[in-house]
Structures are given as structure tokens and as C-alpha cells.
């Protein structure tokens, strides 16, 4: 309440600028969600183009298209951008759009901080991409930034460290916003155990982010001081320990893997019950499984570094703790299958992607179990088997869940139904293309082909050629996705409020498209 003759506190509701200023200054969670998603899409095409260049070079043995150092730059930047510029921003975009709608909140708890969280990202993205034009080119030591390579590189390495800091700051602000929004702005009656699974998974993801980001920030800062200020944290020449960087990095890095997949679990847990027309099987066990995965993720980091050498007891501990994660993950897969069991299933595009997620993510999970075994991992370390494993987790896992989520909520966001036929074309091209790219990599890895090399022995040619053909099918099929999204934004059949027959939740009580301001008064959840 305010006195117009004195202060006039309108909470920013009464005016929102148009044009570019709307997007620069917006504090609206829907605008910011859209910004995150568009940024992510642009980065997907950028890093995806890098992947196609990589696959083009690998079409034949020998050096065809590029200098080996540029190949290394592409692999490094592909990894960094896909993780920090595509998957994480996309999930944050979903959180911005959906969390307030799902919990009956009018916006995020700190809308201005939300604006800052987003606008830091393009700055970091420009720094990363701009480093290609610096002397020496972009970073080429792998996305994990291991010393000594990362200590020895040119100026782009400093710029990358700064970019990682900025992205980390963005993530921390975003996470604090999400935690405070979920915990403090739930509608009356919406207890924690009534929250949609997507909200739960994001709450836990935000906890993970806050717990691990200082570790990443500290690690890259120590790299920076080693590079520029004469310290020797990781510089063996000065008595430092480069292996310790790997420990510190993966202490952040493995929870980061779950940061990349837990929101995917949440999206899939929203979609499957909708198209099975049944409530999610074992809701409580899903919540506890998510929390268990998050807690266990702090105890498994050294499975990434069995090959660097460690005591047998440590190998056993990290091997068994890694295998233990299969238990809560298995609970989730079982619950998704049980939700579909005897459901009244229909197979719209979001459901197709969700089913593909369950099947293909499980393959990625199983290959993860294979790699969890220390003696096997030592054989497969840094081979294409590892590449196949994490792409099954991150492409058919994280990326497919993003596609599923966009098809699922796009009618609510735009007010228009997308073209179902084209959506299915996109699905089938993606799922076939993805398997053609990454399945042969298992065989390449088992046969001993190392990762991160621009040239290879002749016996690996056929599988590499198959993978490259698949990469182009998968890559170009994403243009269909772009067309479907743009078409739905521009027009199409009017979406109803509930959109999907089996949809449950507060967001489906709103009109389609969701109005600019929603839930200014919290609904009461029974």
C-alpha cells in the first residue's frame, strides 16, 4: 500500500517497456525463461556445428579439414558450451517458466536478480566463443581444464576461467532464486510432498549447485593464480599436485552431472503421468530417490580418475558407491515404467521423447555401471566407450528431456499447438540419428579408439563413418525442431487451457498462453 503523494510502490507491475528494452530490463519470469531457452537454442546450434566439424574430420583416418590443435579447440569448446551454455540454461529456462506456475507464485522471489542471472550468460558465451579469435585460439585442453595443459595455454585460457566464473555466478544467483521461490512462495496448501516432481528435482538441483559451485570457482581461480601469480597449487614443477586438481574438479564435476540430469527426471516425471493418464507411481519414492542420488553424487567423484592411480581401498569405495547410485536411479526407471503400466497411453511427441529418454538413458546408465568397475574402467578410460556413455546420458537423457519438455509446455507458452506430424518427424530423425552416432562409439571404445584425437587407425574407419552420417542426420533434424517452434509461436491451432487430457497441476488451470502476470493471488491447493 502506498501513498501517491509520497512514495509510490507499484512493484513494477504497471509498466513494462517494449522492444529491446523489454528483454534487457525484464523481471518477468516468463520473459526470462524465454530468454534462457532462446540462448540455449542458439548455443545448441553453435556447439552442434562444432560437433559436425569434429565428425567431418573423423569421417576418414588422416587429417582432412583442420589442424589438430583446432580439432582440440573444437572438442573442448563443444563440451564447455554444451554443458554450461545449452543444458544448464535450458533447464533454468524451464525452471523460470514453470516453477512459479507450478507452485502458484506470481514470479520468482528475486526478479531483478533473476534478470542479472540471465544477462551474465551471454557475456560468458561471447567470451568463450570470442576466444577462437585470440592468439593461439580457444582453449584446447578439454572441458575438464586439467593442468598442466591448462596452466600452459595462451590468453584464451584466462578468458575461459573468467567465463566459467561468470557462468558460476549466474548459476548461484539462479539457484538461490529457485530455492527461495520454491520454499517461500508456494501457494497455501501446497506442502512439500504435494509439489510437482519437476519442482522437487529443481529444488534438489539448486542445492547441488550451491554446494558445488564454490569448489569450481576455487579450482579455476587456483589455475588462474598458477598461470599468472606464481603460485604452485597444481604446478608439479613448483611442488604442486596436478592430480589434486582432478580430485577438486570432479568433486564439483560429478554432482554437476546430476545437475544436468535431475531436472530431466523432473520433466519426464511430469510427462509420463500425463500421457499415461495415471498419477505418477511411487511419488514419495521418486522424491527420496532424487535426494539419494544428490547425496550419493558427493561420494563418487574419483570414479572419473581410476586410471591416475589410487589405493585399492579407495578404488573399491568409489566403485561400490558409484554402483549404489544405480539403486535410486533404478527406482526412478521402475516408477516411470510402472506409471505407464496399464495406463491409457497415447503417443504424442512429448511422450515419444519421454519413452525414448527412459530407454536410452537406461542404456547410458548401464554403460555407466560398466565404467564404474575399476578394472574395466582402466581399460576403457579415455576411449570412445566413455564418449558413447556420456552422450547417451546427456543427449538421449538431458537433451531429449528438453525436447520433451518444450513440446509438452509449448502450447501453454505460445497459446498454439505445435505441428504434431512435424514433431514426430523431429522425434524419429533425432532418435534414429542419435543412435547411429553414438551406438557405434561403444564398439570403437571397446576396440581401443582413444577419444579427443583428430586421426585414428584404419580399423576404426567404418564405425566412424557410420557415426558421422548419424551426426549429420541428428544435427540437421534439429532444424525441423526450430521450424516447429517458430511455427507454433507464429500461429496454429488454438491450445486449450488444459492442453493435454491427462494434464494435472496449477499451470494447466491458467489460460493458454499463460498471461504476462499470473497467480498474483496465490491459489489454495486442497
Amino acid at each position, binding site marked *: *500500500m*502506498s*501513498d*501517491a*503523494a*509520497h*512514495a*509510490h*510502490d*507499484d*512493484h513494477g*507491475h*504497471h*509498466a*513494462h517497456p517494449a522492444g529491446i528494452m523489454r528483454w534487457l530490463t525484464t523481471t518477468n519470469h516468463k520473459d526470462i525463461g524465454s530468454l534462457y531457452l532462446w540462448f540455449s537454442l542458439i548455443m545448441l546450434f553453435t556447439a552442434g556445428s562444432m560437433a559436425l566439424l569434429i565428425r567431418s574430420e573423423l569421417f576418414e583416418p588422416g587429417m582432412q579439414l583442420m589442424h589438430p590443435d583446432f580439432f582440440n579447440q573444437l572438442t573442448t569448446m563443444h563440451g564447455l558450451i554444451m554443458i554450461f551454455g545449452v543444458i544448464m540454461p535450458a533447464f533454468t529456462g524451464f525452471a523460470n517458466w514453470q516453477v512459479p506456475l507450478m507452485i502458484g*507464485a*506470481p*514470479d*520468482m*522471489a*528475486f*526478479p531483478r*536478480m533473476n534478470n542479472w542471472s540471465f544477462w551474465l550468460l551471454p557475456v560468458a558465451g561471447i567470451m568463450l566463443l570470442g576466444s577462437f579469435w585470440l592468439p593461439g585460439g580457444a582453449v584446447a585442453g578439454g572441458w575438464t581444464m586439467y593442468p598442466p595443459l591448462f596452466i600452459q595455454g595462451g590468453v584464451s585460457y584466462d578468458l575461459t576461467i573468467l567465463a566459467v566464473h561468470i557462468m558460476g555466478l549466474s548459476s*548461484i*544467483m539462479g539457484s*538461490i*532464486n529457485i*530455492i*527461495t521461490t520454491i*520454499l*517461500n*512462495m*508456494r*501457494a*497455501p496448501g*501446497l506442502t512439500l510432498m504435494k509439489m510437482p516432481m519437476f519442482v522437487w528435482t529443481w529444488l534438489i538441483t539448486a*542445492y547441488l549447485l*550451491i*554446494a558445488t*559451485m*564454490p*569448489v569450481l*570457482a*576455487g*579450482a579455476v*581461480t*587456483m589455475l588462474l*593464480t598458477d598461470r599468472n601469480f606464481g603460485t604452485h*597449487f597444481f604446478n608439479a614443477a613448483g611442488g604442486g599436485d596436478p592430480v*589434486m586438481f582432478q580430485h*577438486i574438479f570432479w*568433486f564439483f564435476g560429478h554432482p554437476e552431472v546430476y545437475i544436468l540430469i535431475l531436472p530431466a527426471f523432473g520433466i519426464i516425471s511430469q510427462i509420463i503421468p500425463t500421457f499415461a493418464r495415471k498419477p505418477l507411481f511411487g511419488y514419495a519414492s521418486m522424491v527420496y530417490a532424487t535426494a539419494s542420488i544428490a547425496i550419493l553424487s558427493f561420494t563418487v567423484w574419483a570414479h572419473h580418475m581410476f586410471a591416475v592411480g589410487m589405493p585399492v581401498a579407495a578404488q573399491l569405495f568409489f566403485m561400490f558407491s558409484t554402483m549404489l547410485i544405480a539403486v535410486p536411479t533404478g527406482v526412478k526407471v521402475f516408477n516411470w515404467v510402472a506409471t505407464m503400466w496399464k495406463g491409457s497411453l497415447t503417443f504424442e511427441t512429448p511422450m515419444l521423447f519421454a519413452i525414448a529418454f527412459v530407454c536410452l538413458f537406461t542404456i547410458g546408465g548401464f554403460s555407466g555401471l560398466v565404467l564404474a568397475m575399476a578394472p574395466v574402467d582402466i581399460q576403457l578410460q579415455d576411449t570412445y566407450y566413455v564418449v558413447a556413455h556420456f552422450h547417451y546420458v546427456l543427449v538421449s537423457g538431458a537433451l531429449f528431456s528438453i525436447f520433451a519438455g518444450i513440446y509438452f509446455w509449448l502450447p501453454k507458452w505460445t497459446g498454439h499447438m505445435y505441428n504434431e506430424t512435424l514433431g514426430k518427424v523431429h522425434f524419429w530423425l533425432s532418435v534414429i540419428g542419435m543412435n547411429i552416432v553414438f551406438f557405434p562409439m561403444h564398439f570403437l571404445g571397446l576396440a581401443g579408439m582413444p577419444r579427443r584425437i583428430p586421426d585414428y587407425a584404419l580399423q576404426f574407419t567404418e564405425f566412424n563413418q557410420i557415426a558421422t552420417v548419424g551426426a549429420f542426420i541428428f544435427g540437421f533434424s534439429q532444424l525441423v525442431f526450430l521450424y516447429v517452434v517458430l511455427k507454433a509461436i507464429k500461429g496454429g491451432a488454438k491450445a486449450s487451457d488444459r492442453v493435454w487430457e491427462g494434464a494435472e497441476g496449477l499451470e494447466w488451470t491458467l489460460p493458454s498462453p499463460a498471461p*504476462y*502476470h499470473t497467480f*498474483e*493471488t*496465490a*491459489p*489454495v491447493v486442497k
Partner: protein
Amino acid sequence: MPHPVSSIHDMEQVDTEDCGGDASGAFVFQSRPNHSLTHGQQRFVFWSLAAVCLATSSGFALLGYWLILPFAGLEIGLLAWALEALRSREGDYETLTIEGDVVRVEWHAGTRGGRREMNRRWARVVCDCRTPGRNCRLSLSSHGRETEIGQYLSDEARLRLAAALRRKLQA
């Protein structure tokens, strides 16, 4: 951002003499933002995160990798600020009282607060919903000054409050 409690019950009270009046027969309308996080839960959230961050960063500091610690401290500081900002909004409220010839408006938002009294015969309800895409703005006007009310309400609830106030002021 303030997050209002459901105004539906409040509005039902406004529409009904019996429910809207207190023991003395005065008309009282109160609204406040919704906060689903209690003090105890806030403390739990803070310390659960702070403990994990400080424990891991202290562990690395003991091994000599102390540069993680300042980042953990900064992050915990930011979290503390965020939770404190939420706490500072817990006491926000708006109260509108019509008692005899006096219309009294009291509010508290963050660190700001105020109170204004108007003569019932001079008070006018001003409801501006003219600009498309904007929220309705509801205020009480008297002697050339407008005091905005109903900030924690939806547009629909503001319109209903406006109608109820007009009836009350004309009665």
C-alpha cells in the same frame, strides 16, 4: 516480490457485513503477502547449505587449497542476504479500516510503513484499469492525494474490493 495470500476468503469477508466487521462494527480489510517458509525452516535451509559448503571448502583448505573458502563464504553471504530479504518482508501488511466517519489505511512493506486517515465523506475509490496489459490500480483519494491499496490482490479481487468500498463509503 510480495506474494499475496488468497484474497478469496478476504473478499468474501469484505462482501459480507458480518464477516467484515469487527466487534465494534467497524469494517476491516487486511491482506498480506504469502510466505510458505517459516523461521525455523529458513534456519534449516541456511545451515544445511552453509554446513555443506563450509565443510567441503574447509576440508580443501586444510589440504592447502584454501582459495575455495572465500568463494564459499561469498556464496553463503549471498544466501544469507536472500533469506534475510525474505524475512524482512514477513511483516508486510495492508489494513483498511472504516470506523464511523474515519477511513484508516495502514501499511508496512519492507522497511517502509505508513498510516493515513481520511474523512469517510471525502474519500473516493479510484480504480484505473484503462491501460491494456496492465494491472488495475486501486486507490483511495481524498483532498487531492491518492493512497494505493490492494497491492497484494489480483485484478479481480481489486475490482471486488473497489465495489465493496464504494458501497461502504456511500452507506
